[in-house]
């Protein structure tokens, strides 16, 4: 069934309309549309329609770490969270540092069909920070890579970072930097401050992030390149990026949902679900990050969805892996931290979770204003609902969510990827059905 009539959805601008989805695009919009014969009809009264969400920072783990996540399971999680496109980070095994690996990741995404998968290429071979990977080959591959990142590791060598920024310009790409001075964060476990000192956990000081961002914006200015900063986590980082933008430097920045809501106080439990890199910070940082997102210093929200198997978290804090899953909870957490606090309207949410990440990643077709003819990538959410976040909301392979047991607002009711549903009535559509719909879409062209 490729035709769907959505009745009475509220668009990000607050207006209400019917939407007819046919042949993969938004075919009609307006009040009082009639459903063609055989069309699926969805009552969207009270639901907010957003363009399909775009995550610039996802770990799909495949190839190499399939015990944590696969492209299929990770994109299921994406669909459950209202995402129609994800950028897959390069820290796979083998590392996504060649055209072969990025094309494989993209092909797996195309076959699964839950979301558009855009691989991110590694900046350096094996993420080792020593020499540039074949950036041109990845850019010109079928995967058309435009975002390059050693995420998980910082490109800390200043000369190499300069060269990467320059070289990537050639392909209209962008370097997404994981800003972490490695020497200042050896064996670091949590935000450095009074609490880390009390808990006896080795500190990850804010300056280790801020100093790298400061260096990189100056390098980007010097060579006239685009720079993207992954997961800003400190008030000082917001200040540095704000200064850089005022100076006209072409820098964009992202914040994760968890850094907008959670603080280091949770770590008193030594519960490793709260172990993440960069670490959860203080109240003041959360406030500054929200302000930065409001005033445009921070451009986007990206999940840093980082699945890990149970044994990586069910252990001593020091031995646990860094990272949290975030795709399924992102929209609820952004609603809790930004919308329900009055800082954001839904148009702002569409901007930071769809329009701008699509623009930074040079992704076509996903973000739109529901104009006729646009590729039908969209999500319908119920902002009035509120529930305890539980494991049944998680659609990926791993359950390392910090929100389990927390009450969060909002829920994704329906997600459409290229016109076919990936989530209907809050339930993820069967993999075989989605794959068949994706294939039909390809043959339709």
């Amino acid at each position, binding site marked *: 069934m490729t035709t769907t009539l959505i009745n009475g959805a509220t668009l990000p601008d607050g207006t209400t309309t019917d939407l007819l989805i046919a042949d993969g695009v938004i075919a009609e919009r307006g009040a009082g549309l009639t459903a063609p014969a055989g069309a699926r009809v969805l009552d969207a009264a009270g639901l907010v329609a957003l363009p399909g969400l775009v995550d610039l920072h996802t770990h799909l783990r495949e190839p190499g770490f399939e015990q944590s996540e696969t492209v299929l399971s990770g994109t299921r999680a994406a669909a459950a969270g209202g995402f129609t496109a994800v950028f897959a980070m390069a820290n796979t095994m083998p590392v996504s540092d060649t055209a072969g690996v990025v094309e494989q990741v993209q092909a797996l995404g195309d076959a699964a069909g839950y979301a558009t998968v855009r691989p991110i290429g590694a900046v350096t071979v094996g993420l080792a920070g020593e020499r540039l990977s074949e950036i041109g080959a990845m850019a010109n591959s079928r995967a058309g890579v435009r975002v390059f990142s050693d995420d998980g590791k910082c490109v800390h060598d200043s000369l190499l970072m300069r060269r990467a920024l320059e070289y990537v310009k050639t392909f209209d790409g962008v370097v997404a930097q994981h800003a972490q001075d490695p020497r200042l964060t050896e064996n670091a476990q949590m935000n450095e401050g*009074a609490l880390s000192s009390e808990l006896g956990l080795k500190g990850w000081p804010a300056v280790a992030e801020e100093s790298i961002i400061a260096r990189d914006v100056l390098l980007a200015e010097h060579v006239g390149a685009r720079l993207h900063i992954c997961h800003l986590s400190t008030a000082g980082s917001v200040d540095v990026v704000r200064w850089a933008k005022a100076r006209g430097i072409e820098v964009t920045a992202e914040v994760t949902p968890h850094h907008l809501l959670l603080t280091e106080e949770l770590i008193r439990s030594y519960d490793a679900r709260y172990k993440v890199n960069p670490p959860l910070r203080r109240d003041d940082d959360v406030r500054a990050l929200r302000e930065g997102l409001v005033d445009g210093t921070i451009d986007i929200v990206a999940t840093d969805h980082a699945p890990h198997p149970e044994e990586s978290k069910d*252990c001593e804090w020091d031995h646990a892996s860094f990272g949290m899953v975030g795709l399924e909870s992102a929209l609820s957490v952004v609603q809790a931290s930004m919308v329900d606090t009055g800082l954001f309207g839904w148009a702002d949410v569409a901007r930071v979770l769809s329009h701008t990440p699509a623009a930074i990643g040079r992704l076509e077709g996903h973000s739109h204003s529901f104009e006729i003819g646009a590729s039908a990538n969209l999500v319908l959410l119920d902002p009035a609902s509120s529930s305890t976040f539980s494991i049944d909301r998680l659609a990926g392979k791993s359950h390392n969510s910090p929100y389990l047991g927390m009450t969060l607002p909002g829920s994704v009711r329906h997600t459409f990827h290229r016109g076919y549903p990936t989530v209907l009535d809050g339930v993820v559509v069967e993999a075989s059905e989605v794959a068949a719909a994706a294939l039909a879409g390809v043959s339709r062209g």
Partner: protein
Amino acid sequence: MRHLLSTRDLIRDDAIGLLDIAEDMSEVQNREVKKLPTLRGKTVVNLFFEDSTRTRTSFEVAAKRLSADVINFSAKGSSVSKGESLKDTAQTLAAMGADGVVIRHSASGAPQVLAQSGWIDAGVVNAGDGTHEHPTQALLDAFTMRRRIHGDAARGRDLDGVSVMIVGDVLHSRVARSNLWLLETLGAHVTFVAPATLVPVGASTWPADIRYDLDAALAEVRPDVVMMLRIQQERMNAAFFPTTREYARQWGLDDERLLALRPDSIVMHPGPMNRGLEISSRAADSAQSTVIEQVANGVSIRMAVLYSLLSGDREARS
């Protein structure tokens, strides 16, 4: 009390209660037959993921004097060193019927993780976790101070108004942290003295004065207690201070500083000592030193803790 994980969570009445029980245990140690039947039939496991002959032996003696069966489960040469997880080790010990687990671990928070995990139902005693806490050390230190200060009238007393100066590697010291929280609870006043590199970030928010200059601090505070912390020689390589000679000169309790103390000030060290580095032999062996008393009191304190956690019906207590 179900577990003893930190001194920060210990309320004043419980702390004084433990010190008073330790007084009773100490009397038992002066008898010809040092053994009590209290924990007969109970099993205490010393689960040591980090080497510490002194602490393990102290707990072992304490448990045996209470007639418990003691099993030493050390990480070296066991399945733990072959990559077995804390979870599997804990479940194994639970299956064997451990009533109490005394855990020493290099990872801060490991005892708390064990206690709240549901892997094992035993009472958990933190015998030192990473750079977090070492609560029985702080209790035995407080016990030692209380005895020196109040003598036979120590029972029921706190440490109100006692001035304690803790000198050295506060940054990496679980002893310093546990002492700080307990001494604060008992009414004592704590001053930390250390080079700035060995003062934890954010320690200015702690209930302690922080000083860098030992001589100036000693002259101004005239403390009742000077506690010297062990310096790990490898700290030098991580640029916390230039050389051990410079450290000893600036922050060691040498003979001159010993003479400058009030004659009734007491000198403490949790051991093992680096004689000639953080403390001179003369200071360590002086009449003011409590180093040997601390070891003896350690057994009394650990008896008191094991007794409080493990005697009687655990189900009814939890």
